[in-house]
């Protein structure tokens, strides 16, 4: 059944995207939360763009960028021997950009809430700045991490426009849940559409409830 292939593909995409994006967003968010450069508004605007742009616009430019005729797509083909457009890797790259604000903003808010004094106290107690970041900043910003992770995951599961533009509709390769639903409706397979739609509905509701629960309670405490 193609629905299962779509679900599995969506989950894979979401996991890979979340892991890579968190790794990229942590330094970026830390920098944004601490920098005093005047360029900050420009960079914050750029990071937030995917939130307001129609996914088709983003998808259109990504498609052009990934085409083997562009400099980026060209280099990619030369290095890996594969084209980016209409591939899983292409989907991951598109998802990274599309979900960027969902990872960066909660992390930035989390890091901004870490008191400077706590980090300085850690330094005076013998911690290097890297040690202080790991032992003080990350635990104090843990809600930001949870929110960023959950939102990135959920948002990647739910994307449609960018995926359709960049990945097309190739079963088992780029056909994720949202596109499977679209295909099911086009072919009047309402049973599958119902199943997947209801699944996404419940999933999204559960995810958002989790986020709000995390943000309401103090989160966990570490001894």
């Amino acid at each position, binding site marked *: 059944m193609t629905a299962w292939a779509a679900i599995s593909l969506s989950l894979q995409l979401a996991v890979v995207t979340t892991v890579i994006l968190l790794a990229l967003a942590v330094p970026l968010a830390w920098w944004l939360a601490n920098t005093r450069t005047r360029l900050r508004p420009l960079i914050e605007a750029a990071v937030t763009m995917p939130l307001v742009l129609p996914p088709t616009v983003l998808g259109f430019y990504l498609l052009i960028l990934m085409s083997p005729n562009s400099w980026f797509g060209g280099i990619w083909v030369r290095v890996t021997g594969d084209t980016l457009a209409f591939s899983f890797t292409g989907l991951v790259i598109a998802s990274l950009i599309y979900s960027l604000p969902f990872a960066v903003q909660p992390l930035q808010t989390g890091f901004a809430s870490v008191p400077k004094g706590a980090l300085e106290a850690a*330094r*005076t*107690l*013998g*911690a*290097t700045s890297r040690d202080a970041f790991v032992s*003080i900043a990350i635990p104090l910003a843990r809600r930001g991490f949870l929110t960023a992770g959950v939102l990135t995951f959920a948002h990647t599961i739910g994307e449609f426009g960018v995926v359709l533009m960049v990945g097309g509709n190739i079963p088992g390769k780029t056909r994720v849940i949202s596109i499977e639903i679209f295909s099911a409706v086009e072919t009047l397979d309402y049973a599958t559409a119902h199943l997947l739609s209801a699944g996404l509905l419940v999933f999204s509701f559960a995810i958002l409830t989790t986020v709000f629960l995390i943000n309401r309670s103090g989160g966990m*405490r*570490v*001894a």
Partner: protein
Amino acid sequence: MPDQLHFRLKLRRGPTFRLDAEETVPLDGVTAISGPSGSGKTTLLRALAGLDIRAGGDRLVTFAGQEWDRSPQHMPTEERRIGFVFQDPSLFSHLTVGGNLNYGAKRRGVTSMDAIVEALDLGPLLDRAVHGLSGGEVRRVALGRALSANPAVLFLDEPMAGLDAARKAEFLPYIARAVSQARVPALYVSHATDEIVALADRVLEISGGHITGWRTPPMRLSARVLAEVSGGVEVRVDSPDGTDVDAVLQIPLRAMPGEAVGLGLPPESVLLSPDHPGNGSALAVLPARVIRPSGATERPMLEVLGQTVTLPGRFRVPAGDRLWMSILRVLPRPEPTDSEL
């Protein structure tokens, strides 16, 4: 001669403030750094700790022969072995009280913090979360955390800011006890007279970003605890010549018989008179001998029961032999005793 901290700092802060300060401070007992708000006290302390290295400036700091700063070379804060108690206590809110104390101890290889836990009464708090603590408890934990990393010097930046008078009175002896017990020299930034009288051995004055000199050290008499009484202890002012003067007074302090106590004398609580004024409301009336009367340059000096006391310049001490010193209030400070060696 004790080790010394020498600094020569030229820094800019904001559009107008400049710190341009040079001094040598003995690393012994408590050195208060005093001055009006905005005079650069905190900036000085933070600069010595190397907390704002990236803000630039011309820095030369030597600590007990070890070079901390010689621009552009700087030793990172974490290698300076400073116990820093900040104005805002900045406890680690994701850790318990015990976790806060352990943080520095773990990183500096300190194995036992029992003495600090004991001196600051932190035992019952160890498993508590930080956010349930009272204002006074938070300060005690912050002080304990700084001491638990076994610092070579303690920096205290108005550690009692924001506490009400009652909490201050409660916390002050803790600072005194912890500092004397840990035998660590301290730099204490404050503009509160009581704190300085109670704790400081010497006072460095700073104004408009410049060191303006050493102020007369707080008047202090050394005494010894005789017995515990309700609400405190009874102490006798040490008198090497063993006079039979009634030099026993009661003070609200938690201490053991035999312990040495410094009695800080707030200037406004000391009255001098040529004749015995009668005991009245004074805690004690002690005989004093004039060693040096008020003069043009040097501070007046008295001998009280064999101890030498230098008075602030505003006291007018007439030439003459005998005076009586009425003491209306004292600010006690536990002193290290031989038994703790």
